[in-house]
């Protein structure tokens, strides 16, 4: 029964993709397209709950083979699913949050061109993401991995007639390719070492792996994770990905796809555990990204871009958690982040919807009374992400930071703490600029401000409740329900004895940091609204550096994009001048040869043949005189022939 449910989970969205994608445009209206889309995801969610209940009850992992996919020689790759506690958590997040975002999209995308296309891509994304988290081997993981990348590309470029969207989509795709190459190398290395791609078989013989090989595999996996989860140095695609519709940003670029890298690291934590070097790299990249992205988020003006940098930063916390061995905490933060970041993005979408597409927070302000529900929900998201206790973000982020501190990673702890302060500050800055103070909208926009319909606010409320209370499944720290549940899959992280006093102190510090960030934002954007500009002017170079995102995009352009373009142009020149020249020369020679042989043919061969033919002709002219047409002549010849025959026979008989 459970096996059937597991197989059904990805089937529903797949059916919706086929139906909506192939014939939906022609056969049914937008109403049925969106009903199919969220309905299928809802059914998947129900199946997931069934599977989850079974896993909780029996405490065992399920491995289901849907069908054998590639087999030959000693290679067998099945389209098979592994549902263990880790997959269960991911499934719940993906289908649950995915379902809410699908419902929200019905309202948000209302009246857009390509409505059916949008939901087809969204469902295709769900299928890929489900394969990614459910696969029991690296090959299925890789299909999902590439599938979500493709859907990300398609959905970022959803407004494909907009140049910036098309460019952002290409950028995301190309940058992800770099990571995917690393991931593919890791898969090859795994196969070379273990002769199989199944997780269970690989992890069963993990003891035979040499530390050097473990480091190599881990680092290659890490390259893949960095690309997908937008970490330094491959994070640049994620802020640009905000060109996609807001539900896409919420689903793909906040809640699910970008967390695939974290999932993958936690899934392979047994390999990472063998390599302290790789773990350190993971942690350092995570910590650096958490801090780095947060600083950029401080000064951005686009509501979605602030959230995008915030996502990069929060993913950095997850990497940091995974890198210091706090796998459960990383997954915990992944889950709470999915709740509050989806909530923030969707609320931001609601704001954008209300302001007829305006995304610049400098042209907002004073919206708290005009769109009260959106305001309340955005505020909930803000306090959840900022780490104000006792809401979701506080528990998960504090757990990662506490783990860093108690395991003596003080530098990383410091980076995370500063990052947390900045997070709290830029999120409250965003809230203040958007919802409080005086309105900075133009009159035309202001006249059209309206609260979003219930179909959008409803999912937001569910996410709001989850953001407020989601942290308690990880309570008390290191011993919560989530930790017990994940222990078999993610390894127990709580064997390190820590005094309660230290835990409480760290919690106090974390809360203090969050509240200080809030206070700072309150002072700068509410009490003394002229201060930010003065501070910015005083900061000068620093401010403009942040404003320009440390010029990283320009640097990459200079280092990689432009040389690649030049190299491409050089190759183009080489192709056109050298290669084409050779081809043309060969062609020319063939042409000349052909002309020569034409002459020989015309004058030598034809001549010979004509001589033979003419000779025949002359002889035939003589010989045909024999045929006079006179019956008598013929008769006479016959008679002569008969006589001749008779004579010959006579001679033969006589002999």
């Amino acid at each position, binding site marked *: 029964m459970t096996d059937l449910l597991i197989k059904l989970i990805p089937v529903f969205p797949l059916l919706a993709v086929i139906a909506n994608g192939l014939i939906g445009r022609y056969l049914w209206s937008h109403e049925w397209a969106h009903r199919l889309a969220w309905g299928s995801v809802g059914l998947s969610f129900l199946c997931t709950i069934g599977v989850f209940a079974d896993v909780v009850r029996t405490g065992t992992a399920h491995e289901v083979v849907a069908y054998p996919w590639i087999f030959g020689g000693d290679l067998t790759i099945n389209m098979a699913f592994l549902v263990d506690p880790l997959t269960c958590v991911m499934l719940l997040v993906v289908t649950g949050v995915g379902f809410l975002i699908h419902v929200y999209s019905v309202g948000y995308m209302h009246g857009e061109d390509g409505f059916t296309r949008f939901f087809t891509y969204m469902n295709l994304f769900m299928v890929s993401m489900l394969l990614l988290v459910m696969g029991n081997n690296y090959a299925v993981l890789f299909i999902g991995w590439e599938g979500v990348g493709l859907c990300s590309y398609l959905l970022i470029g959803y407004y494909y007639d907009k140049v910036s969207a098309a460019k952002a989509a290409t950028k995301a795709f190309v940058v992800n390719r770099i990571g995917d190459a690393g991931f593919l190398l890791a898969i090859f290395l795994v196969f070379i070492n273990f002769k199989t791609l199944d997780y269970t078989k690989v992890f069963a013989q993990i003891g035979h792996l040499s530390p050097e090989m473990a480091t190599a595999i881990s680092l290659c996996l890490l390259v893949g994770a960095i690309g997908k989860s937008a970490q330094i140095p491959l994070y640049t695609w994620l802020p640009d990905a905000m060109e996609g519709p807001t539900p896409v940003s919420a689903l793909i670029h906040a809640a699910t796809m970008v967390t695939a890298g974290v999932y993958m690291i936690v899934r392979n934590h047994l390999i990472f555990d063998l390599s302290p070097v790789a773990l350190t790299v993971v942690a350092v990249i995570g910590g650096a990204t958490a801090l780095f992205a947060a600083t950029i988020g401080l000064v951005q003006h686009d509501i979605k871009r602030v959230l995008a940098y915030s996502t990069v930063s929060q993913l950095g916390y997850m990497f940091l958690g995974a890198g210091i061995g706090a796998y459960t905490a990383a997954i915990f933060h992944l889950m709470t982040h999915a709740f509050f970041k989806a909530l923030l993005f969707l609320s931001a979408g609601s704001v954008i919807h209300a302001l007829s597409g305006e995304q610049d927070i400098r042209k907002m302000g004073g919206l708290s009374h005009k769109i009260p529900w959106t305001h309340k929900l955005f505020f909930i998201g803000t306090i959840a992400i900022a780490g104000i206790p006792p809401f979701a973000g506080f528990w998960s982020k504090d757990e990662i930071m506490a783990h860093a501190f108690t395991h003596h990673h003080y530098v990383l702890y410091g980076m995370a703490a500063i990052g947390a302060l900045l997070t709290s500050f830029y999120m409250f800055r965003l809230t203040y600029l958007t919802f409080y103070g005086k309105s900075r909208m133009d009159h035309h926009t202001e006249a059209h401000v309206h609260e979003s319909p219930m179909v959008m606010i409803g999912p937001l409320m569910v996410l709001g409740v989850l953001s407020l209370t989601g942290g308690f499944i990880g309570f008390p720290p290191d011993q919560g329900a989530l930790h017990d549940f994940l222990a078999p899959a993610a390894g127990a992280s709580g064997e390190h004895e820590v005094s309660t006093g230290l835990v409480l102190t760290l919690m106090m510090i974390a809360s203090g940091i969050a509240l200080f960030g809030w206070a700072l934002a309150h002072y700068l954007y509410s009490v003394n609204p002229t201060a930010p500009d003065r501070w910015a002017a005083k900061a000068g170079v620093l401010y403009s550096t942040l404003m320009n995102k440390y010029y990283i995009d320009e640097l990459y352009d200079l280092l990689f994009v432009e040389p690649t373009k030049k190299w491409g142009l050089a190759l183009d020149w080489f192709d056109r001048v050298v290669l084409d020249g050779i081809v043309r020369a060969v062609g020319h020679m063939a042409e000349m040869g052909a002309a020569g042989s034409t002459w020989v043919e015309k004058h030598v061969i034809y001549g010979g043949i004509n001589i033979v033919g003419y000779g025949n002709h002359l002889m035939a002219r003589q010989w045909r005189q024999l045929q006079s*047409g006179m019956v*008598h002549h013929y008769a006479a010849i016959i008679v002569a022939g008969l006589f001749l025959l008779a004579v010959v026979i006579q001679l033969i008989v006589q002999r």
Partner: protein
Amino acid sequence: MIPLSAYVAVSAVLFITGLLGVLIRRNFIIVLMAVEIMLNAANINLVAFSHYLESMAGQLVALFVIAIAAGEAAVGLAIIIVVFRGKISTNVDEMNLLKW
């Protein structure tokens, strides 16, 4: 009893007559008649040998030859009529299109 050689001799004379008729005469109808004579010479031979060898096969073949001769005469006369319509003549020498 007439000896077989007498039959064969008569047959030979008749055949030579027919052959000369075919080769020498210029009138198509005469040529046709000469062909008939040659056929009948063959018939005499057939019947004579049939009798001599006491086998009915020769007489059977003679009957076939008579039937075929009738058919041949019919076809030949039809051709003569067609040619005559075009040429107003039955002279064989004028019919020389059957060449090259």
